C-alpha cells in the first residue's frame, strides 16, 4: 500500500434541510472538499459514496448535476457505517495505486425526523423490540456485570451535547446537565431521550490523495494510517452483550496495521448514537480494560479537557445522525483537529486521531469500522 493522505474536507451543517434536495446537499459538501483540496473535478479519478436509503445510483444522480467527468462511481451501504465503509474503499483504491485522487461522499436525506428506525421489521421488533432496545439490553447487562449506573451513561450525553454547543455544523446545540438527561423522557432501560441521537440530513466529503496527487504540501499533511472493517453476523451462538466485538476486532486490526497503540491516541470521534454505545466502545477501542468503561467515565479522561477527549465535536448526539454522512463527518472533524484548525474544542498537540463507527440491525447483522489518522 502506498501512503495515502487527506487532500481536502468539506461538509454541510446537519439539520432538517427540508427544502434542500439530495443533489444540492451533496454538491455543497463536494464543492467544499474539492476547493479545500485545491483540485478541479477533472483531477478526481474515482468516487465512493456511502448512504443507506437514497435509492439507486445515488452518487451518479448527485454528480451529474455537477457535470462531473464519468469516472468510476461506487455506492456503498453498511447501515450507519456506510460513510466509513466508503472511505475504506477509497483508501484501498489510492493505496493500491488504482487512483491518485479519490472523492468520498457520505450523505443521507431523511424522510422523517425523530428517533432512528430501520427498514427491516425483524421478529424481535414484532415482539415489541425497538431500535434503541439493543443498546438498552447491552447497557442493562453492563450494569449487571460491572455496576455501571444510569449516571455514567447520562454523563456521556451531558458531555457530548455540551461539546456540540460550539460546533456550527451540529443540529442540537443545547447544553444539559446529568440531571436533565436522566429526567428526560424514558425510552428503554437506562436510555432516556437525551441519551439518544436524533435523525438529520446532511453530507460530508473527503478527498484522498496518493502518488502524484499527494505532492506539494501547502499545509500540514494528514495521513491515513489504517482503516479496518469488521462485521457482525450473528447466526445463533449466544454472544457477550456487554462488549461490541466488531468494534474490538476492527480496533485491534487498525492498531496492528498502523503500529499505533491505544495509549498513543490523542482524540477520538466515535459512534455515540446512544450513550451506552460510547461507554462500550471505550472498551472495544481498548481505551480502558474490558469492564472499565464506567471507571473511565468517572475519571473524566474522555472529557474535552481530559487525557483522551472523545467526541469533542459533540458526536452524533449533538450533530444529529444523517446515517450515511456520519462516518465521513467524524473524519472531517478529526482532520480539523490534526490540522489544528478545529473551530470548536481544539485539543492541544493532536498527532494521532481515531474514528470509530458502527451500523446494523438490532438483530445480529452489522459492521464496525475503525480509522486511524496522524500527522
Amino acid at each position, binding site marked *: 500500500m502506498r501512503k495515502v493522505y487527506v487532500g481536502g474536507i468539506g461538509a454541510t451543517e446537519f439539520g432538517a434541510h427540508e427544502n434542500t434536495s439530495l443533489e444540492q446537499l451533496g454538491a455543497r459538501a463536494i464543492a467544499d472538499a474539492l476547493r479545500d483540496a485545491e483540485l478541479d473535478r477533472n483531477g478526481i479519478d474515482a468516487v465512493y459514496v456511502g448512504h443507506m436509503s437514497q435509492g439507486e445510483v445515488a452518487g451518479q444522480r448527485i454528480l451529474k448535476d455537477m457535470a462531473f467527468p464519468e469516472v468510476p462511481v461506487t455506492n456503498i451501504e453498511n447501515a450507519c457505517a456506510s460513510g466509513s465503509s466508503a472511505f475504506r474503499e477509497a483508501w484501498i483504491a489510492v493505496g493500491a495505486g488504482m487512483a491518485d485522487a479519490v472523492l468520498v461522499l457520505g450523505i443521507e436525506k431523511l424522510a422523517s425526523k425523530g*428517533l432512528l428506525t430501520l427498514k427491516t421489521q425483524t*421478529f*424481535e*421488533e*414484532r*415482539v*415489541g*423490540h*425497538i431500535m434503541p*432496545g439493543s443498546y*438498552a*439490553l*447491552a*447497557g*442493562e*447487562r453492563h450494569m*449487571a*456485570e460491572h455496576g455501571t449506573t444510569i449516571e455514567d451513561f447520562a454523563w456521556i450525553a451531558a458531555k457530548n451535547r455540551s461539546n456540540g454547543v460550539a460546533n456550527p455544523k451540529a443540529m442540537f446545540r443545547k447544553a444539559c446537565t446529568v440531571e436533565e438527561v436522566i429526567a428526560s*423522557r*424514558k*425510552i*428503554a*432501560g437506562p436510555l432516556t431521550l437525551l441519551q439518544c441521537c436524533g435523525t438529520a440530513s446532511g453530507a460530508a466529503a473527503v478527498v484522498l490523495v496518493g502518488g502524484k496527487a499527494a505532492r506539494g504540501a501547502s499545509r500540514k499533511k494528514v495521513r491515513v494510517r489504517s482503516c479496518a472493517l469488521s462485521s457482525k453476523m450473528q*447466526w*445463533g*451462538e*449466544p454472544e457477550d*452483550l456487554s462488549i461490541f466485538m466488531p468494534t474490538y476486532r476492527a480496533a485491534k486490526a487498525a492498531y496492528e496495521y498502523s503500529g499505533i497503540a491505544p495509549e498513543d491516541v490523542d482524540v477520538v470521534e466515535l459512534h455515540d448514537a446512544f450513550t451506552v454505545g460510547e461507554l462500550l466502545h471505550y472498551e472495544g477501542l481498548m481505551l480502558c480494560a474490558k469492564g472499565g468503561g464506567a471507571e473511565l467515565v468517572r475519571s473524566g479522561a474522555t472529557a474535552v479537557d481530559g487525557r483522551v477527549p472523545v467526541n469533542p465535536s459533540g458526536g452524533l448526539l449533538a450533530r444529529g445522525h444523517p446515517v450515511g454522512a456520519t462516518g465521513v463527518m467524524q473524519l472531517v472533524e478529526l482532520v480539523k483537529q490534526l490540522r489544528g484548525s478545529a473551530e470548536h474544542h481544539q485539543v492541544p498537540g493532536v498527532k494521532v486521531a481515531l474514528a470509530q463507527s458502527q451500523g446494523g440491525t438490532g438483530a445480529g447483522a452489522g459492521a464496525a469500522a475503525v480509522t486511524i489518522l496522524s500527522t
Partner: protein
Amino acid sequence: MSEDDEKNFASVDAQRFRVEPGGKPMLVGGRCGHCGCIAWSVRAMCPRCWATDQQEEFALPTKGALYSMTAVQRAQNGYRGPYAVGVVDLPGGVRVFGRIHWPEGSRWRAGAEMELFAERLDFDGDVPSMWVPAFRPSEVPGHA
C-alpha cells in the same frame, strides 16, 4: 371470549413459536440431521454445514437463564407500553428473545431461571391479536 377464539390467534411467527391446543407454549427448534447444529426455528439450510435436507423440528426447552432484559417505555405505534423484553439462554446453547415479566419493585438478576409462557398481545383498531413468547421467573418449590 371462548377458548376456541383464544387458540385461533396467530403466533407472532409460527416458525419460532406455537401455542398448542390447550394453551401450552412451544419454542420451535431446528436440528440438522447431518451435523447436529441446533438453532431457533428450522432453517431451509443448516447454517453450519449448508445441508438443505434432514432439517428437523423439535421442541426447545421451556426454561432457561435470564441474560439481559430492558423495559421499553417508548413502544412502536400500535404497541401498548410499557413492557419489558429480553433474552433467555436455554440449555443446549440457544438464546431466545421474548417479552419478560419480572416482578415489580426488584431489580432483575442475571442468571435467574425463567420459564416460558404464551402472552397475548392486543393492538388498537383492527389489528389482530397475536401470541408472543414470554418468560417469568420459574416457580421454585419450597420458596415463598
